[in-house]
């Protein structure tokens, strides 16, 4: 934002912008493995992510704010996930869903990346194999909290750093 005079004005806009950002985080449909099935349940009737403004699963990275990496990431998939991440407009956030995405999980072997944070900046990690949809909802709420506090900058800081 290009606002040099009037500090007061800038902070208010910031707060307003953050409120707007956190209120409708649209996740990208990026299913990798078992966790993806639980991610589908997230928009299903019981868990209903619409309550949190996140029911619109976007198929195109150009229209999404949040990438939920749901599942194990193989070495072959790394360039693809990086490209998809780059295609997402800023601000953008990443949730590592499940043990595999967070740390490699039970697959400590030649094929699986030991945590997506090796290739992407991750904002929230969700434990579980697979995490229940409640856990993912919790992660989305945590993410909202940190957006409101200005901690999760949405990929902007990651690029500048």
């Amino acid at each position, binding site marked *: 934002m290009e606002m040099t005079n009037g500090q007061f004005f800038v902070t208010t806009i910031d707060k307003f912008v953050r409120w707007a950002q956190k209120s409708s985080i649209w996740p990208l*449909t*990026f*299913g*990798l*493995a*078992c966790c*993806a*099935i*639980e991610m*589908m*349940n997230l928009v*299903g*009737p*019981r868990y209903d992510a619409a309550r949190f403004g996140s029911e619109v699963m976007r*198929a195109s*990275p150009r229209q999404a704010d949040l990438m939920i990496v749901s*599942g*194990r990431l*193989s070495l*072959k*998939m790394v360039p*693809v996930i990086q490209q*998809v991440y780059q295609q997402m407009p800023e601000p953008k956030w990443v949730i590592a869903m499940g043990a595999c995405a967070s740390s490699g999980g*039970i*697959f400590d*072997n*030649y*094929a*699986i990346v030991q945590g997506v944070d090796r290739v992407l900046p991750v904002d929230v990690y969700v434990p579980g*194999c*697979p995490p*229940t949809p409640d856990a993912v909802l919790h992660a989305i709420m945590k993410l909202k909290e940190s957006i409101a506090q200005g901690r999760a900058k949405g990929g902007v800081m990651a690029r500048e750093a």
Partner: protein
Amino acid sequence: MAKLDPAGLPLEHPDPRGYRVEAAEGDRMIISVGPHHPSTHGVLRLILELEGERVVNCVPEIGFLHTGIEKTAENLTWQQAITVIDRMDYLSPLSNNLAYVLAVEKLLGIEVPERARYIRVLMVELQRIASHLVWLGTTVLDMGMMSGFFYAFDIREAILDIFEEVTGARMNPSYIRIGGLANDVPDNFVQMVQEFLDRFPKRLDELHAILDENPIFLDRLKGIGAISKDKAIAYGLTGPNLRACGIDYDVRKAFPYCGYEEFDFKVPLGTNGDCYDRYLVRMQELRESHKICVQALQRLPEGPWQIDDRKIVRPPKHEVRENMEALIHHFKLVSYGFDVPEGEVYVSIESPRGEIGYYVVSNGKNKPWRVRTRPPAFYNVFAIPEMVRGELVADLVAVVATVDPVFGEVDR
């Protein structure tokens, strides 16, 4: 550049990535669908050669979810390997468990007690219903209908509740163990399953009501993506995809395991092998699985739920606290596992996607020497080119959806 032979394989480039945009001749266009694409149901990449809207050729590229499961299983004890095998076909982990466990039990030469057998059948059939419901939900979603997805996933939640109650996990429960089960079912199991089974036919009627006369849904499935009987056999199709062509092959009937011969159920068959038939076959299978569940629940016997061999199954916890011998057995099983006699076996069962087989080799140690899977979805995926050739691009979505691939299983 890459020319294609009539079977659809690139001649000069065995690697499908040899396909380049320059390779298109004349008006033909080459596009790549996936690996990140909403309608590929996972991480499949399809390289399409198009003439206008028609698909001239299609080459699938797989391996984006390669997890090294078979190799990892070799470094785990026989019992531990169940956990990674769970994560292969994650829509029906219990079928994977069952096939692998049956193979190891065959090597060990053990028979599980009646109660364990019935619970296994019951759980696997519930899993089949759950898996078909995910298939249905995602398929109707691809056909542009959100409400069908909600209905299907709502029904599935009831099954996941049962799983959570019994095994502690909604998915990937590793419940079926060598020598029996992980634990007995809880007291309210019968009641929970009964409630679900009572409600299920009505819920299924609801689904039929919103789908069967929906002109858009029917138009997008009828006569699309047909495959002939001979081709289906040649490609090694199994499961609902094969039966949609009218070939009566179901492992549960052809080579019964777990006492499936005692149950009264039919094998639904299609006629044309097109998307609509695949849809119909799966919908009827839901009813048949329901029938099997009802019978299994009625006949569920009392008694032990695992074998009585302390060298293979863990002693109950209270004994471990009081009895020295039980403690030693417990320690040995947890730290070392057990040896399996030398030999090799192949056991296959009917998973929701078709014939899933495990070829297991033991060299007499506490870890498998080789665990090789025959994943049904792998063969099914490679029949997609045969089905989409000559169809419109939009029909590709219907074909991929009705083939029901699961990439955990294809890539392993």
